[in-house]
């Protein structure tokens, strides 16, 4: 008997092989021609200006901070969802307190303008 994750590992490994297979085929059969302009970075048909790897204003980094909080919250919710029925009313109230605190956090972030595109 294999473990559950053994199956997943086989799936991932064989899958990676199957995805790589067409790449191998094109490596064997695709035509090649050296033509320097072809290897330029595309920029609407004009010569490329500078690098794309430059300073860039990531406008939603506050979103991603809030996301981390909420994602962890959801991870806590999964085990709770499975056992909530057997734990009974107490489980409901405890999770309600947890959720209310988080929603207050979201409301605070919203109020402070963290959810605005600035």
């Amino acid at each position, binding site marked *: 008997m294999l473990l559950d994750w053994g199956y997943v590992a*086989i*799936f991932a490994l*064989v899958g990676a092989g199957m995805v790589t297979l*067409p790449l191998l085929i094109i490596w064997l059969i695709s035509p090649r021609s050296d033509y320097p302009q072809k290897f330029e970075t*595309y920029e*609407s048909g004009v010569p490329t200006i500078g*690098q*794309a790897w430059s300073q860039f204003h990531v406008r939603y980094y506050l979103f991603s901070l809030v996301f981390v909080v909420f994602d962890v919250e959801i991870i806590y919710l*999964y085990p709770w969802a499975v056992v*909530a029925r057997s734990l009974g009313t107490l489980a409901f109230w405890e999770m309600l307190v947890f959720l209310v605190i988080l929603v207050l956090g979201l409301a605070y972030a919203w109020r402070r303008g963290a959810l605005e595109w600035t």
Partner: protein
Amino acid sequence: MDWLWDVLRALVGTIIIFSAVAFIAVMFGVLLERKISAWMQSRLGPKHVGPQGLLQTVADTIKLLQKENIVPNRADRLIFASAVVVVPLAALLDYVVIPFGVTRSGPLIFRDLNIGVLYFAATSSLVVIGILMAGWGSNNKYALLGGLRSAAQMVTYEIPIGLALVTVALMAGSLSTVTIVNGQARLWYIVAQPVAFLIFLIAAIAEVNRVPFDLVEAESELVAGYFSEYSGMRFALFQLGEYGEMFAMAAMAVTLFLGGWRGPVLPPVLWFVIKLYALIFVFMWVRWTYPRFRIDQMLNFSWKILIPVSVLNLVVTAFFVVVAHR
């Protein structure tokens, strides 16, 4: 020798799922998309290759196989090349936990993981890593913008999707997809959870980067977004990833809300396929109906509407399941 038999079965299962997704879902899906869009715009769509243009995507794939494989000079070669493998693989990993039907010996599923729903949430968001890799590795401004937008989109729509999944898990009292389908023997969860279904559908469209949330590859502003620099078969592999992900999301929606393989008279697998394609049709219908959102509208829509609504929906569901139902 028992384990060897298991390994062999896993191998065969993997190969079957990968080929089925590549040929039935993706190739046929692309053709369907073109035919449906043509139908909605009073055109004919592909018509010349094969009967009624049925072999169009096969011809396209053969064409793409013969194309030159261009790597831009300034690209980060390793990241550029590996992104092509990550995107379709991440999309296809979703299929491990999707029950396609049921036979006498048990449900037709690659592996019924006991944390199936959580596994799906994890793998479905893996695609964004490949997209970011492609965007960064190309060293192209459009691609980078597309990749970063994709990260913002994933970060935002991951939460409503997760909350919808938790709501269903709460209804079924389990994270295993087979148990969830069995829990819908009497009543599909779409009846009990219409709000969660809508949230899941909207967030799924956003997660697979389709119109009206296709900012990642908005043709009119970003050329082709993160795969601007990819040519030939690599481009086709991104298509595989994208359509594979779309079919996985639809299949998961069928599993969670539409009763999976359950239905009268017809064989279970057929029911699953009918429901799957009905949802795919909805995806395409939405695509040809709505204009694209602006990115700030899209982020606001999730944070200010979808997330509060889904938290509220979860609390109400929890109240009925845990407190009122006792």
